[in-house]
Every structure is written in structure tokens, then in C-alpha cells.
């Protein structure tokens, strides 16, 4: 269980990293915290001829207040978020989500950007970020672009990143201080990936409202627009949740339907009360 032979680069600018990616012709991969990629390399279920370690690119570790949003560099670790470095604006939601990812030793290395770019369907950040309506910033050979995280998360282990692109930052809109949120994760044991994840967010000032579910069983994060009106209008009803899940995702077996429904209902109830 040892990683296959590979080349290693550790550039100190985004531009240099992009250049290496462009040269790698698809066989180069970004190494951020490595908490997903390195286990997969050790198991030889992921392959990379070239690793581009972004650990020396300082700007990617920055946390900035940018007016109407807060910008997190892509390699800000879960632990820094857990410790509250980025949490002024989301009423503790970022901290809560970070604190419940894996274990402290993993959170010290694992990064927000890495989690989004890896697009593990069972991961927490994609669900939370879609629920908060964040944008992501991308740099590539053809310049920079910015897009809503929902568009970034394309499919299971698939994002909108091109082969020569890097996720550089996450822009989290500043919410009102009364932002109501709930993040429910059902898991088999502490630190494990969620069997079912549900997030609900409601900003009473702006009317911003999101309900998102996630897990491997449902193919990663799924925004449930149908429930977002329900969240604002009346109590969550299991039939309505099941209906929304079926219409958004398709049929689920009884167990999966049950745990996702319960997590969603609890999340919605918590935000409403």
C-alpha cells in the first residue's frame, strides 16, 4: 500500500502551478492537504504522474474580508475554520461543519478548497457551501473565472475545473447576524463520512433560503428547491420531503429515503424554530 512513482512540484505562485498543470496534459493533479488524495494514492486507486503541491502558495492560505463577502483561500484548513478564523459571518455554521469533519489531525491538513475540488459525494463542505450560496474563484491558463459553487460541483468526483485550472478561493456572502442554519449529519460513528447530510439555511433579512441534502447514496449534494418554499411557509412534512427527494434525485430505497427524510426534516425544523 505505497503510492506509485510520481513527479513532484511545489510551485510558490498560482501562475507557476497553472503552467505545470497545463504541461501535465491531464496527468498532473493538485495536492492540497492530501487527506483524500494521498490515501487514494497509497491504495493505488488514484493515479497522478505529477503532483502539484500548492502548499507553498501563500495567497491560497489567506482569509480576507472583501466587503460583501469573506474570501477564503482554497487551502485554508478545516482546523483554522474550526478555530473560528473565518466565522464572523455565518453564525457559527462554518465552525460547526469544520469541527465535525473527520478528526483534528486530518483537519489540520485537509482544506476547504481540496474538499470542494475532490467532490466526494459524501463530503460535508459541498453541502454546506451550496446551502450558503457561495461562489468559487478559479485560475487557469485562460485567466480567472468565478462561478456559483452549485455550478462548480458537477457530479460525483467531478467539478467544473478544467485540466489546467486551480480552485483558488471561496467567497462566502456575508449574512445577517440572525442567519438561521442547521446542519445535520447522520453517521455511523464519530469522524465518519455522513450516511445522510442535510443543511438548511435561512436569512430572515434577505429572504435567502436553501435546503441541501448530500451523501454517496444520493450522488452528492442536491439542492432541494421544493423544500425551500416549505421552509419559509409552513412546518416540514415528511411526505413533502420524500416527494422532493424523489423528484430531485429519483427513487431511493426505504432506508435511504428514511434517513435523508429525517435529517432534512430535523434541519428544516431547527431553522424554523
Amino acid at each position, binding site marked *: *500500500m*505505497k*503510492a*506509485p*512513482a510520481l513527479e513532484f512540484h511545489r510551485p510558490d505562485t498560482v501562475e507557476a502551478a497553472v503552467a505545470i498543470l497545463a504541461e501535465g496534459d491531464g496527468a498532473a493533479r493538485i495536492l492540497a492537504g492530501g487527506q483524500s488524495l494521498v*490515501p487514494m494514492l497509497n*491504495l*493505488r486507486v488514484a493515479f497522478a504522474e505529477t503532483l502539484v503541491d500548492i502548499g507553498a502558495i501563500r495567497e491560497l492560505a489567506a482569509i480576507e474580508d472583501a466587503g460583501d463577502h469573506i474570501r477564503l483561500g482554497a487551502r485554508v484548513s478545516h482546523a483554522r475554520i474550526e478555530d473560528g478564523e473565518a466565522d464572523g459571518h455565518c453564525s457559527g455554521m462554518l465552525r460547526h461543519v469544520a469541527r465535525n469533519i473527520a478528526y483534528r489531525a486530518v483537519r489540520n491538513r485537509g482544506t476547504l478548497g481540496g474538499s470542494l475540488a475532490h467532490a466526494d459525494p459524501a463530503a460535508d463542505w459541498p453541502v454546506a457551501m451550496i446551502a450558503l450560496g457561495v461562489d468559487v474563484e478559479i485560475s487557469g491558463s485562460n485567466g480567472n473565472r468565478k462561478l456559483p459553487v452549485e455550478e462548480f460541483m458537477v457530479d460525483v468526483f467531478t467539478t467544473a475545473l478544467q485540466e489546467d485550472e486551480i480552485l483558488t478561493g471561496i467567497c462566502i456572502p456575508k449574512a445577517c447576524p440572525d442567519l438561521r442554519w442547521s446542519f445535520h449529519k*447522520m453517521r*455511523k*460513528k*464519530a*469522524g*465518519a*463520512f455522513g*450516511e445522510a447530510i442535510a443543511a438548511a439555511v435561512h436569512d430572515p433579512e434577505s429572504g435567502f433560503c436553501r435546503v441541501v441534502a448530500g451523501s454517496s447514496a444520493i450522488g452528492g449534494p442536491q439542492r432541494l428547491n421544493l423544500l425551500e418554499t416549505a421552509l419559509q411557509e409552513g412546518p416540514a412534512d415528511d411526505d413533502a420531503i420524500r416527494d422532493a427527494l424523489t423528484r430531485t434525485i429519483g427513487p431511493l430505497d*426505504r*432506508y435511504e429515503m*428514511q*434517513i435523508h427524510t*429525517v*435529517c432534512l426534516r430535523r434541519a428544516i425544523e431547527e431553522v424554523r424554530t
Partner: protein
Amino acid sequence: MTRKDTGVGASLLRREDARFLEGRGRFIGDIEIPGMLDVAFLRSPLAHARIASIDTPEDADGRVFTAADLSDVKLVPPASKVPGHRIVAPPPMASNRARYVGEIVAACIAPTRAEAEDLVETLAPDFEMLPVIASMDDALSEDGPRLYDDWDSNVSMETGFDSGIDEIIANAPVKVTRVLDMARQAMVPLEGKGVLAYWSERDDQLVVYSSTQSPHQIRTALCEALGLQQRQIRVIAPDVGGGFGYKAILHPEEVIVAALALKTGQPLRWLEDRFEHLTAGANAREHRYEMNAYADDRGRVLAIDAKLTTDGGAYSVWPHTNGFDAIQASGILTGPYDIGGYRVKTQTVVTNKPPLSPYRAVARPGACFAIECTMDAVARAVGRDPAEVRLDNLVKPEAMPYKAITGKEYDSGDYPACLRRAMEMVAEAPKTPAPGRLLGTGYAIYTEHTAVSTSTISHIGIPMMPGFEQAAALMQPDGSLELRVGVQSHGQGMETTMAQIASQVLGMEPDRVVLRHGDTGLSPFSTGTYASRAIVMTGGAVAAACDKISVKLREIAAHLMQCEPSAVRLEDGLLKGPSATMTIADAAETWHFRPYELPDDVLRDGLEVTGGYRPDGDKGPFAYAAHAATVSVDPELGTVELIDYVAVDDCGTRVNPMIVDGQVLGGVVQGIGTGLFEESPFDDQGQPLATTFADYSLPTAAETPMIRLDHSETQSPYTRFGVKGVGEGGAIAPPAAVINAINDALRPLGAELCAVPATPKRVLGAIFDAQDRAKADLETAK
């Protein structure tokens, strides 16, 4: 210093801790031999396949080996005396047919493990898929595939026992039936298996470092496989990072690495990685019990009629065979209860899975799970409290020693008192559920045959498990003592407890004693550390060797102090005579360096002795315990939180109570793993589905409550110091206690779970079933 502080009964802090706390342990992966190369294996990716060919790169000569290269290695089949037991020994490497995912097909050698794995990837094997036997049901299907072409079925072993229960069945007012499933598991010592072998010219020996619990056993098997004399192999177990039975069997890798080290003349090493362990090592438990209990109206159980099926996997491991689980489960299925009628049939089937191997407490967690869930079901059927029903059924202390219907003799103990103590402790458990949660409490009680005796084992014909032991005691000239034992201490703290026993017998300070263990080059023969035997067997042998030393020392002292040897006492490190006192060091030094002060007859035989031990009457003592779990169940998600756990055990005299606590606690958490988390599922093509810790869930500190312990000490009448084994016991009761607790919690929903581990999916499944039943009943009522 008194013996109470340092001898039997003292909670001495452990001698071995210092090196581990400072990172100075020496595990198999820490050993470096000049010129050593690493081995990686090509393993079958299919559960059942014909190996048509394996293409190797042209430059791979001397670096890649297949079964053809090991044609001179002999198979080492385990022995069984069970009539009709069909045994197939695992080949070190599959030659033309692979029978489970992970079975070794080729070995690759390179300077580093990474490069050896690179080499594995260059091999081009051609596997032709064969029909797969992926489950017990597959194995038993009439027209399904056969694992062995020349067998008429996939049944490897069948056993049975019938005390004659037809009359009881005919008259019993209460009958309870349950089918209970215990999933397949991996044992997961935190350090994987590992082996390192090289030929030593100077010693004229193959030196084999192995992460094993049983160095002499492995030597025996390797000699048989390689055609060497036993003097020609030295097996050394360095520090071993947990065993749990996984390291008490012969592994194909041990044979391959030893054989290739001989063949290539190079030091070779293989270290098991976690992926290998969770696939090729998914080899424990997997029992199905069909239980019928017959009882009176008060829940007094009159007879048990049971059928047990175990999934034996593809081969029979050496030395225990694939039948050990079934034999042991059927031998203890009536548990600690006084049950007058018993009938059991067992069948062990072969499937395309790794060979079934004995895991901590072997079959007893399964047997306990079966009888204890049945006992709860009986209590439900008669509308009584499960703990009260148990009290009525337990063997009474006045009946000890008690001959069970299975033929086993329970040597001593007060089972009802043990359960009552657990009930008292449960009274302090949380009683108020959190909103939306259901609380439940469940009990399980067991009796465990520890340090199994020759007579117990011989009838099933496992020659490598004799019930005797030896230990050497070497008195040093300065009065310090070296003990040499063939067992291997891998967490049990024997470096401490054996020194305590020496302290007890010789009255010397334990830090004047050192224990050498786990090395065939140093110690007398031993079958190793397993079956909760070390403190009974090795402890007894150490005491016997120290007795001999004691006699010698007192003879020396008596001569020097001019008194009778019988008048000399060994106390506080001193030899005390009627009118004089001398130190052990004085006596030892005199013997070694001033022989002219001693007469001939005192000098004879020396101060280095071997003691032998066998419990009185060749009887293994029975340790026992009552456990109680309290759980909080989320009935909407099926999640279970263990909020309290109580274990009251009796392992006779506790040589070191602190270490006993540690053994019980560790066992309990492993049992909690079996009950709630751990499972090695396979799909219908025999593919293992839990190949990393992302899918194979182990209990951590976060999943376990502060376990509350209590003990009683009923001395065994048959063993030195009255000890009984304790290494395995903790793991026996938790699956049963946890399931009984969950079912207690689920009672208001009419749901009952009959399988472990109790994952959310299984718990919700039981709730769904209850909902469906209620719905169907309602429909019928309409």
C-alpha cells in the same frame, strides 16, 4: 516490601510501558537486516477463478515467484478427529485455482515495498472466473457450484449432540424460536501481520521474525512445510502489536517468505497492509444460529434445540481447522445455565471467503449471543423480567463443580451473585431518555472455559493445543532472575505479571526479575498465547520453576546458616533462618563463585531450572461474567448510542487487578465492535465490501462509554493461585448485551433485531418490519 505489594494480587504498574511510551518498542516492521528486500503479493481479484496463466516481465527472473516455484514446499494440513471432517489446507500460493479474493497468486521481491508493488502491477495474470459461493446459503444450495470438484456438497464438517429431548419438547408449555446472525469480521490488530526471514550461516538456522502469538507452533509448521529439522529454524516474535487470534495461526505469507528466503538466500520481509488485512483477513465469526428454546410458564428453560451453521471460508487454517468455531460454540451453547435437555447440529460450510480463523474468545461471542438473545425471548414470551428469568436458570453456587449437559465441568463460582451485582450497578445507569430517543437495558452472562485442557481439546483432535506448559527460571549470580517462557506477551503485561509470580514464590522484588518470551531460541517449548491460557499455564509453570529455585536457594542457605532447609523462609528478598538471614544474592553468589563453601549435593543440578505445569486433573477453569448495556436508540435513524456499560467478572485470583481491568475493558470494546460496528460483508460475487476503515468501522473512544467494572474472586480449585484466564472474556458478552438492550428499547415499537452488528440499517430494518407487520395486521382486522 511485602509480597502483597509485589506478588500475586498487586496492581503493579507495567514493566513494559516505558519502552512503548518512548517509541522504543521493536515491532516486526522496525527490524532491519542488512540486504533485506521487501515482498509484495499479487492476490486474486476474483473470489473464484481458474488461473490460466501469469505472464511475468522478462527481467523478472529471481524477483517474481509463483506456486510453481514452491513445488517443493509441503502443505501443512491441520488435524481433526471429527468423523467425516473434510479438510483442505490452504496452499501457500494458489496454483491453478484461487478460492477467495486476496488469495496469494505470486510474490514479488524488490528493495522497497513500493517497488515490489510496482512489480506486482507489471504481472499479467489471466483469471477465468468460476461460479462463486458467496454465502452460507449459496454453499447449501442443492444445485449451486461446488468449491471442491470432488466433494458432493460444500459441507466440510458436521457435528451433533442429543441428550434426548423429545419428551421435553412434547410437554413444554413455552416454545421460543429465533434465528440469530453474527456477521463476518476482521480481527484488526493495529499492527498488521508481518514476517522477516533469513538464513544465518553461523547458527545453521533459518531465522524467522514473525509477528506471531505462537513462535513454537509456527516453527513446527514451517519445519513441516520446508522439510527442516526443528533445530534448524528459530522463530522470534518481537514486540507484537496485538494478536487476538489472528497471529495464532500459520499464515501462507510465513511459509512463502521463509521458503523464498531459503531459495534466494536473501533476507526477505513482508508486512501486511490494512487493505490486505481487511480483504484476505476477513476471517472471523460469521455464525447463524437457529435456536429453539423450550421452557415452563415461568421461563425456566428445559431444553435447547439448536442448529448452527458457520461459514468456514475456503480452507482449513493450521492448526485449528475451519471447524473450531462450530465445535466450541456447540460445546458452550447452554451457557451458564442449568438446562436439562440439549440437542444441537452444526455444519461448517466452505465458501469463497478467507479461511475462518479463531478470533478472541473464538466462538463464544456467537454462542453467548445466541443463548442470551434466546433467554430474553423466553422472558418476553412468559412476560417476565429477563434478568429475573436468568437468575432462575443460572447454575447455583451450591451445584459447583457443575457438570453441564455438554459434558463440561464448571469448576467454581456464584453466577447468580455476579448477575445480581450487575443488576445493582445498572440501577445507577441513566434512566431518562433524551427527547425522541428510546432507552433500553440488556444483560448477557457467560461462562468461559479458559486455558483449555488436553482432555477438552484432544477429542476434537487439535494436537497443537495441549494443556501443559513449561518455563525456565535462571538464577543469576547476583540474585536477579531470568524467566524464559515460550508464550508471547503482546499487551497482556506478562513481563510484569510473571515477575509478580516469581516475587510471590521467591519473595524477591519484581524488578530483579526479567521475562524473556516469544523466541524459540531462548525458551522451552510452548504452544503460545491464546485461549486465555497464559496466566494459568505459564503462570503455573513459572511458579513451578520458581519452586525449584526456592528449594535450591533454601538448601544453600540452610548449609551456610547451619540449619534445616525446611527452617528457611523466603521473604522480602531474604532467606531467613532461625538465627540468621542472608540475601538471595548471597546464596546465588556463593553457588556460582564460592562453590568450595557448599557440599556436593547442594551444588548438583544448578540454579537454572525448567518447571512444568498442568492444572490439577487436567481441567481448565471456568471464568465468568455478567454484563449489562444501556443504549439510547434514535428510532427514526436507527442509530444506537451506548450510554452505559457494566461488566462484573470473576476470573479467580487476579494476579494484577489493574491488568485484569485492562483485559476486560479491551475485550468489552472489541465486543462492542462486534455488536455495533464491525462487519466484513461480501457481495454476491464474493467481493469484500469493507476494504478500508472508511467501510470497516472500529469502535473508538467516542463510541464507548466509561465502562464500569466490578469483580469477584472465586478461586479455581484446580489451578495455581486459583487463577482463571481473562484475556478473551471481555469480548464474549457485549454483542448479546447490546442487542438485548436495543430490543428492550425497541419494545414499544414491537420491533426485534436478531443480527449483529446493529448498524442503523439493521435497526431500521427491524423497525420497518414491525411497521409492516402492524400494517398487515390492521389490514387483516379490517
